[in-house]
């Protein structure tokens, strides 16, 4: 199979003789390294500028950094679990959106549209206020702490996004493929499993990764609901120290954590997008 390299070149920019792929990769790597340097040095400079003597601020930041990192770990954990739940539920909902049974199709569409068009923050509020603090199944009691409720709120949002991706992916396969499988007496399940999904899996990957990026970027919303994730801890640290000059370095440190995690993922997504975009 041949790989198509898309020429994502500006129509009016000069043509270069260097192979596009390598040039782009070098540029991206250089850009990344540069960005990391900027992101790491700007907070330090901010700290320096704010206090005049960088030592004090840096020491304070160093003192709190492990705790903030721990909080950031909860952001990652919430994003993983919510993405897992959201993907499983979303694949189911997406397949239901192309069901042959009209009421199933309509119900799945309505659920998708409802959760997709409601801001994640509102879904979080709903999860927080409308879910009980524990679930009882006979003797089994499952506690629902805020971070778990937040995960459920995020999952609803992700489910709806994934559902749309799956519906789009399934419908992008020409109807002739469905027809050919049907003529060979495949069941609906086998048609999806053996013919349709293998063909659209690759093209669903980049949008799925984009949805993950949206997911990780929305995890600080849990802070509004009192979950002790990165943003909450950063804010508590600032108010515990009570020095306004700490605001800039602490926030920049948190922004840098997200950036360092997210930027490589978005570069990778972009590469996958370009690789799969042109194939028919």
């Amino acid at each position, binding site marked *: 199979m041949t790989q198509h390299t898309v020429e994502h070149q500006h129509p009016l920019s000069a043509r270069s003789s260097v192979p596009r792929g390598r040039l782009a990769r070098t540029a991206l790597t250089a850009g990344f390294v540069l960005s990391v340097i900027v992101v790491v040095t700007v907070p330090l400079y901010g700290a320096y500028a704010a206090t005049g003597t960088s030592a004090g601020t840096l020491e304070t930041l160093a003192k709190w950094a492990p705790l903030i990192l721990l909080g950031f770990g909860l952001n990652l954990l919430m994003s993983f679990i919510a993405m897992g739940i959201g993907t499983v539920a979303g694949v189911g909902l997406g397949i239901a959106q192309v069901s042959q049974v009209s009421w199933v199709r309509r119900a799945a569409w309505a659920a998708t549209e409802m959760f997709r068009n409601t801001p994640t923050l509102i879904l979080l509020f709903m999860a927080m206020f409308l879910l009980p603090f524990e679930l009882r199944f006979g003797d089994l009691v499952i506690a629902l702490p805020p971070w778990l409720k937040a995960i459920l709120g995020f999952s609803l949002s992700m489910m709806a996004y994934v559902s749309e991706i799956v519906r789009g992916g399934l419908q992008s396969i020409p109807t*002739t*493929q469905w027809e050919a499988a049907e*003529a*060979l*007496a495949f*069941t609906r399940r086998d048609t999806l499993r*053996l013919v349709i999904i293998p063909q659209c899996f690759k093209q669903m990957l980049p949008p799925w990764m984009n949805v993950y990026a949206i997911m990780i970027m929305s995890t600080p919303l849990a802070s509004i609901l009192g979950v002790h994730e990165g943003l909450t801890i950063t804010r508590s640290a600032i108010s515990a120290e009570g020095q306004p000059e700490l605001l800039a370095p602490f926030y920049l440190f948190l922004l840098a954590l997200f950036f360092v995690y997210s930027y490589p993922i978005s570069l990778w997504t972009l590469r996958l997008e370009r690789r799969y975009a042109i194939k028919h």
Partner: protein
Amino acid sequence: MTDASTLPIVRIVDVHKSFGLVPVLQGVSLDIARGEVACIIGPSGSGKSTLLRCINALVPIDQGSILIENEEINTPSLDKLTLRRKVGMVFQQYNLFPHRTALQNVMMAPIHVLKQDKAAVETRARALLKKVRLEGKEDSFPGELSGGQQQRVAIARSLAMNPKVMLFDEVTAALDPETVKEVLVTIRELAEEGMTCVLVTHEMGFAREVGNHVYFTDKGKIVEHGPPAEFFANASHPRTREFLNQIL
């Protein structure tokens, strides 16, 4: 023309079908005997392809009756699996599964639908690919094959289900003139082996040579039909003549 002692393998009686408000089939009736090669010709939009899709229930009919080996298919209790084991179909655009090799395309349905033993299916699939003269192309992906080669894989894929009737929907219409022949040769061999074939086609030469019976459809009806020699020599209906004059 059918032998009175044998029942027709396909019997179509007064079939009606509309897509929304557009009538596509308006009372079509025909019988196809076992081993017969029936060619359906006619202008585009005359309902030929829809008729073919009705025969294996890809398109449900509104009214009338279609019997395959004396079993009614226009019934809610229809077992589509049994029907499609009996009736194979080959499409104009081949519709091979692009993510599977030629051999895998042929093997998939017998393994997953008929639950047959994989080793046995593979032997048969290789034999079928050889039969359609594609030995050596087993591991090629559809995208690496020419149109004619892809269409022959599609024929082999259909044959792997051991159908009693094969439906061909304008199978040469998307092919280059040079590759049309290799596909027609394959179909002719099938016909000579006694396979019942129903073809929607624009290849008048082929219909004349290989066909046992020619049907001319227009505006959802069969206007005229008969054995090819008779049909092409003295078609009487003005619409048939107009069509034949344009095409020949």
